[in-house]
Every structure is written in structure tokens, then in C-alpha cells.
């Protein structure tokens, strides 16, 4: 009898090209997503060494981090030049490198362009059982479809481009089990924030997370993408969901997905991608869905979470002295005081977008809360940034853009936008943002910016109230 294996072990074993005596493995990479920020130095390295891309056919390039989200073409259909010279230069480098190395490329004005982690699944480029890498830590997102997906640095980008492999040691495995039905107004974002709050930002270091249990099984693929996306915020380079019928249904018919006889063979194989009965995980964490409330972060680490009904914690309440110090620093940076109720914290900026929460279901959920309502007077800017051109088009077909615009939001072009202070979308110093993104680090949304991570519906609620608010008070509970 063969040894019972976890899902991670099955995918890993299928990709080992060669195992060395010290346990290091040469691992084959099936899919490589390339964006403009972490690739120029890698292409330059290839050029200097006279090397080619081994498998351009398994590689896809899309600009996302640095593209402005304002209009990209004028009324005459001409491309609008990018004002920032360095950004323009970096985007031009990808536009040049992709054809030079024979890589498929979705440019900034292509309907297929978007955030790499939205584009991969949407195009059927991301498939179960595959190894997928990208020079971006949120590559973990693709694990929602059962792909072993992880972020890499630029040297590794160059290594994959040149060899289609990476030198890796196997990770440990961490089972994250959530059971039960999520409460009214509670979303996938709240679940992953609750998990990170429990295990801490280093809790998954050295591990691959597998999301197990009835709560995850009941989730849509897009919700699973939100969860897996933030595995890295819990320290894990990858998250994994066992592919199921929902996964196959999601992938079927997408432009780059297998077709005909290949499809049937693929699905047959994908059905084997489950953790075997009796397989052993190195670590287990279990949460009950019923304990998870709509959640907000209060500090400068994604582990600093509190239910919306809660208050800013007192740094003195932490047992660990370094955590006490970090919390005090966080509160000073965030301009908050211990004991302040989260619902009393005013907000000036709203950002709905990022690879965590910019898919059609996210936009539908936020629009449902905003429908017929207006953003509060105190809101200086409210942005909604679809994750891709295709998401944008679908939202417009459904009339969601009108709901957002009538509520007072700006409807933008796809990209990473305000998730990171890189392109023109930023939060000014000292101002506060309710953001559906994934990191609330100091300066993440711009120098001095104060970020609170929330779900799309909670961002919508904050927009309406001008402060953090419990979205459950603004929604019709159809279950009640």
C-alpha cells in the first residue's frame, strides 16, 4: 500500500525533477506569471548571460502594480502617456521584454489585462495540481484552485525563466480547518483575517496551508481566492484548497483551459488531488465559523484584528513585552487610543480592489450594500478598482458601475491601485483608509497612510457611515 499523502505532497511529488542527497529538490514549474516590477532585473540577467526563456509557452506577462487606474486611452483611442517617468520606463521594459523573449503579453489597454492573480484563474491559466510561481507574494491566491502557488524573488524569476525549475526544500504542512456556516454579513475576508489573528504573521512560516472543513467547502471559488491570497499574511508561502466540482465548473470553458479529450483526462487526474485519509499534517489549527464576526484590523500587522463590535486593545493587555511595545507603536502610528470603539473611528478613504477582493463577487457584494445610498460627507476619496478588464466589463454589463458612481465612488481601470503606494493611487499621510487589500503595514498605502483591512461589504458600510460600521446593520438579512 502506498503511503497516505497530503494534497501538498501529491503535487510536490509529481514535480520533482531530481532529488539531491541533502533533500533539496529540483522542482518543475508549470506556470509562470510575470509583472513589471519584479522582472526587469531578471530579463536583464538573461540578456547579459545570453540566455533564453526555456518555456515561453508556460509564461504569461501582465503589467499591474505600476499602471495608473485612470483612463488609459483618450477620446480618439490614443494611449495616454504615463506621467511618472520611472513607472513609464518600467512598464515599457515589460512591453519590450515580453516579445523579445517570446512571452504572451496582455498590455495595459488589453481587455484581458488586470492583476496577475485575477488574470491567471480568469483565463484558465491557473489549473489544479500545477506548480505556479510569480514574483509576488500574493501568488498564494492561486492555491484556491488546487495549484501549488507561491511568490518568488527576482533571482528566482530569472531561474524559472532560464530553466523552468526552482531549487526547493519541501515545506511542512499546516491544516487549517474551519467548520460550520458563516454568520450573516461574514465573508471569506473575515475568515482569513480571523485565522491570521489566531496564528500570527509568522504562524505559517515554513509551512504550506491546506484549507479544510465544511466552511471552505461551501465557499465559491472567488471566496477561496480571497482566503488563499492571504496565506502569506499568516507566514505561509502557499495555501491550498482541494479541487472539487466547483473548481472544475469554474475552469471549464475559460480561454486557456484544456479542451476536449485533454479536459476529460485533466479532470480525471484532478479528482485524485485530495489529502488521503490518514495523511499526517505537521500542524493543525481549528476555528469555528460561528465565532467569526465581520472583522477590522486596528494595527500595522494583519494579525492585529478585532471584531467590528470590539475596541482598540490596550497595549498593556499583551503578555509578550515585545508585542506590548509593537502595539503601542502601532497605535501611535494609526492615531488610535486604547479602548476606542472601532465603530467610533472615522474614515476618510475607501478602497475596494486588490488581488484579495476585486473580483465580480466582491463588487456585487459591495454594490448590494451601496445600492441607493451615498458615501458620507467625510469621505475624501472612494475608489473601486476592478481586478481585470473582464471583471470591469462584466460589472458594467450588470450595472454595478452605476451603483458605485451614484453612491460617490470613482470607477477605475484595473490594476493593483491603492493596495501599495507605488502607482498614483495613495492614501495621504495621517489619513485613514478602509481597504479591502491585504497589508496594513506602516506606509503600505503611501508614507504615513493608516490602513484598516476589511471585507468589501465592510468597506461599503464604512463609506456610507464615514466611520467603521457593522455591515449587518445595513444589510437585509434574508435568512432571518
Amino acid at each position, binding site marked *: 500500500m502506498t503511503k497516505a499523502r497530503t494534497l501538498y505532497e501529491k503535487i510536490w511529488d509529481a514535480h520533482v525533477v531530481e532529488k539531491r542527497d541533502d533533500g533539496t529538490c*529540483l522542482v518543475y514549474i508549470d506556470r509562470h506569471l510575470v509583472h513589471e516590477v519584479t522582472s526587469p*532585473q531578471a530579463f536583464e540577467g538573461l540578456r547579459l548571460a545570453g540566455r533564453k526563456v526555456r518555456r515561453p509557452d508556460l509564461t504569461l506577462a501582465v503589467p499591474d502594480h505600476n499602471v495608473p487606474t485612470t483612463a488609459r486611452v483618450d477620446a480618439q483611442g490614443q494611449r495616454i502617456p504615463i506621467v511618472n517617468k520611472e513607472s513609464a520606463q518600467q512598464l515599457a521594459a515589460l512591453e519590450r521584454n515580453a516579445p523579445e523573449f517570446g512571452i504572451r503579453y496582455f498590455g495595459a489597454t488589453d481587455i484581458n489585462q488586470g492583476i496577475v492573480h485575477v488574470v491567471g484563474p480568469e483565463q484558465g491559466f491557473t489549473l489544479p495540481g500545477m506548480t505556479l510561481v510569480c514574483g509576488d507574494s500574493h501568488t498564494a491566491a492561486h492555491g484556491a484552485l488546487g495549484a501549488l502557488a507561491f511568490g518568488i524573488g527576482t533571482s528566482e524569476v530569472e531561474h524559472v525563466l532560464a530553466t523552468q525549475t526552482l531549487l526547493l526544500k519541501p515545506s511542512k504542512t499546516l491544516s487549517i480547518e474551519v467548520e460550520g456556516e458563516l454568520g450573516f454579513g461574514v465573508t471569506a475576508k473575515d475568515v482569513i483575517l480571523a485565522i491570521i489573528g489566531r496564528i500570527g504573521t509568522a504562524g505559517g512560516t515554513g509551512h504550506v496551508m491546506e484549507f479544510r472543513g465544511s466552511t471552505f467547502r461551501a465557499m465559491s471559488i472567488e471566496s477561496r481566492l480571497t482566503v488563499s491570497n492571504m496565506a502569506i499574511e499568516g507566514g505561509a508561502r502557499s495555501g491550498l484548497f482541494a479541487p472539487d466540482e466547483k473548481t472544475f465548473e469554474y475552469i471549464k470553458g475559460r480561454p486557456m483551459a484544456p479542451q476536449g479529450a485533454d479536459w476529460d483526462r485533466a479532470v480525471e487526474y484532478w479528482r485524485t488531488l485530495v489529502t488521503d485519509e490518514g495523511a499526517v499534517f505537521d500542524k493543525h489549527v481549528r476555528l469555528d465559523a460561528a465565532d467569526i464576526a465581520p472583522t477590522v484590523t486596528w494595527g500595522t500587522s494583519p494579525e492585529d484584528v478585532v471584531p467590528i463590535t470590539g475596541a482598540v486593545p490596550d497595549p498593556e493587555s499583551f503578555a509578550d513585552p*515585545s508585542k506590548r511595545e509593537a502595539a503601542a507603536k502601532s497605535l501611535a502610528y494609526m492615531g488610535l487610543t486604547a479602548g476606542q470603539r472601532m465603530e467610533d473611528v472615522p474614515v476618510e478613504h475607501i478602497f475596494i480592489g486588490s488581488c484579495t477582493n476585486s473580483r465580480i463577487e466582491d463588487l456585487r457584494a459591495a454594490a448590494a450594500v451601496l445600492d441607493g445610498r451615498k458615501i458620507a460627507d467625510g469621505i475624501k476619496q472612494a475608489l473601486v478598482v476592478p481586478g481585470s478588464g473582464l471583471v470591469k466589463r462584466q460589472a458594467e454589463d450588470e450595472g454595478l458601475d452605476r451603483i458605485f458612481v451614484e453612491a460617490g465612488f470613482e470607477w477605475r481601470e484595473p490594476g493593483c491601485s491603492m493596495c501599495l503606494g507605488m502607482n498614483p493611487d495613495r492614501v495621504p499621510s495621517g489619513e485613514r483608509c478602509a481597504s479591502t487589500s491585504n497589508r496594513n*503595514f506602516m506606509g503600505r498605502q503611501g508614507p504615513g497612510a493608516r490602513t484598516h483591512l476589511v471585507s468589501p461589504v465592510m468597506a461599503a458600510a464604512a463609506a456610507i457611515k464615514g466611520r467603521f460600521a457593522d455591515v449587518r446593520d445595513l444589510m437585509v438579512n434574508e435568512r432571518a
Partner: protein
Amino acid sequence: MEPVTTVEGRAYPFGMKNVDTDIIIPAEWLKTISRTGLGKGAFEALRKEPGNVFDDPRYAGAPIIVAGDNFGCGSSREHAAWALIDMGVKAVIAPSFSDIFSGNAFKNGILTVVLPQEAVDRLLEVAKTDTISIDLEHQTVTTPYQDRFTFEIDPFRKSCLLGGLDEIGLTMAQGDTIGAFEARDAQTRPWLVPAAA
């Protein structure tokens, strides 16, 4: 890559936990298409605070950082490693590192030395007045006060660092093995190549 054997000199007694890559190098600096010049942006936000260790003349040009748990968490940006190199840092000592950062550091010849918190606490004290010495061959960290801490390092990484090896060149030399894997795989997974859009 230049071989790495020892790193010796003053060390920034930084000590902070969960230092994320946005702290090491803010996103504004990621627009570069080069690997150099990022030192100016390193720890930019912290350097605005008076009395920060990075602008303390005692530690100017120090090749070592002594930090807290989970150093380098967050994004995969290799710019974090490039920024450290550009400011003259050749080694970071901490109780733990994020996986992606430690890989990026290694690829750029930065030693990431994992030591228990007690050892790190001791080095944070010593760093205020004296030098610290890291010997990769013997896997030790020593101080002028006879402190001697040993650390673990992956043998493959160690040999690459000591030899200054080009990992891509090494893997490319195995092109035939990779080709054989691809040929086998094409039989078992005919759906590997994405359909043309």
C-alpha cells in the same frame, strides 16, 4: 556571485520584530529597473524618527543587522535584499526570517543567521559598543567578550555561499534531466501547455 566566508564589524542593534519588506524598502522605490541605488530608500520611514539606529554615527556602514523575530515578512520584493546590500549590509541575525526573504537574501550573498532569542538579546547589547563576527565555514557568531553562538545553515546554501556559485548556471547544466522530465510529463499531462487565446 562573490564568495562569502566571514562577516565582521559593527552591527545595527535593531531588535524590531516582524520587520516587513515595506519597512525595509517602500514601494515607491520599486520602480527601478536596476539592482543598485536602493540603499537610499532603505528603512526610509524609520529613518524619519530621531535617534534611529540607522542614522546613528556609531553604526555607520555596519555590515550586520541584529533584528527580532520574522524579519523580512510580507512581499517577495528582492529589492529588500538589494537595498540592504546597497547600504553595506552583508548579514542579518534574527530568531527567524520569512521564507521568501531568506531565499532572496541567500541569492544575493546576504547571510541570514538564525539564533535563539536569548543569543539575539545578548548580541543586541554587545552591538551597542563592540563588533560582532560571523564565520560561515564554522557556523559561529562571536564577540570580543568570548560569546560564541553556533548556528544552523542549509548545507546547499552554505556551499553556494562559500563557493560563490551561479545557481542558474548549475541548473542549466542539467538541461537534459529537465528535458527528460518534460518529455515524460507531456505524455501524462497533455494539457500542460495553455490553449492559445
